[in-house]
């Protein structure tokens, strides 16, 4: 936007004030919260190590199950999962590469989202 247009807009809104609610607004809010306790932060009553422990147990259980299944069975194949076998030899690297790219994009989006909030705190 041109600087003059930006200046015009700032001047336009400089005279604008936010709309005011009714006079009873604050009293209504305070009446609503009367008797309501402030919710405790979950980390105060849920030990994070318990959550991490349960998650680790589940992941280990899944990995052990997969390893045991693949090593103990002859000609193991689960129905409907032979996707890679249906792909031609040249398509497999592209398929794997596409999955890796999608995982990286999701990870980047997640990290960017966290950093956005942290950067606001630094300002």
């Amino acid at each position, binding site marked *: 936007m041109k600087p003059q247009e930006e200046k015009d807009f700032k001047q336009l809104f400089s005279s604008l004030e936010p709309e005011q*609610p009714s006079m009873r607004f604050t009293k209504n809010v305070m009446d609503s919260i009367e008797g309501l306790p402030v919710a405790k932060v979950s980390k105060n009553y849920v030990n994070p190590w318990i959550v991490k422990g349960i998650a680790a147990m589940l992941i280990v259980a899944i990995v052990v199950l997969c390893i045991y299944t693949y090593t103990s069975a002859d000609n193991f194949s689960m129905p409907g999962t032979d996707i890679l076998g249906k792909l031609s030899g040249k398509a497999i690297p592209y398929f794997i590469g596409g999955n890796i790219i999608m995982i990286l994009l999701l990870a980047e989006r997640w990290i960017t989202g966290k950093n956005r909030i942290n950067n606001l705190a630094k300002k």
Partner: protein
Amino acid sequence: MQEQLQDTDIIRAVLQGRKADYAILVGRYQSFVFTITSRYIKNREEAEEVAQDIFVKAYLSLAGFKGNSKFSTWLYSITHTTCISHLRKHKPNTLLIDNDKLVVYSDSQYHSTNVPAGTGTQKQAINEALKQLPDDDAEIITLFYLAEQSIEEIAVITGLQTNNVKVKLYRARQKLKDIIEHTYGKEAALLYRN
């Protein structure tokens, strides 16, 4: 003395049991929350009810405010999500309008070539122009110019990427400018300069 208290000090006091101090935060932000809510909910009484619910939600979640952002940004995030949820639950029977098309409906009271002098009616004119914007555009304009939130903060509030917010803000300003010029014609310049 109350104006000197930072938001974080008030929050700490409320969490320590001084519930009455929450009224200071309500008084400080009620107008902005109500204004943002009004951008989505046109009915004044309904908007006020929703705005009160927002403050109740904020109170219940107060312990979860980590201080990573300004309290206002956190509060406006709650405002944004609450308004969106409310609209989804109470979807009015209206015709959907393509946001890319600027729909300007003339009201004989405001379709005037005379921009009235006096700041009161000018504010009214600007407010009426804002009401003709799509809800999300009006919200972004309000957050940026009235609530003085930065682009990054608006991105956090609305859940959009920063670049998207910049584009939406630019387009919202263009639409608002078009509405004002369409409504007031040559006298639109008086709105900027008075």
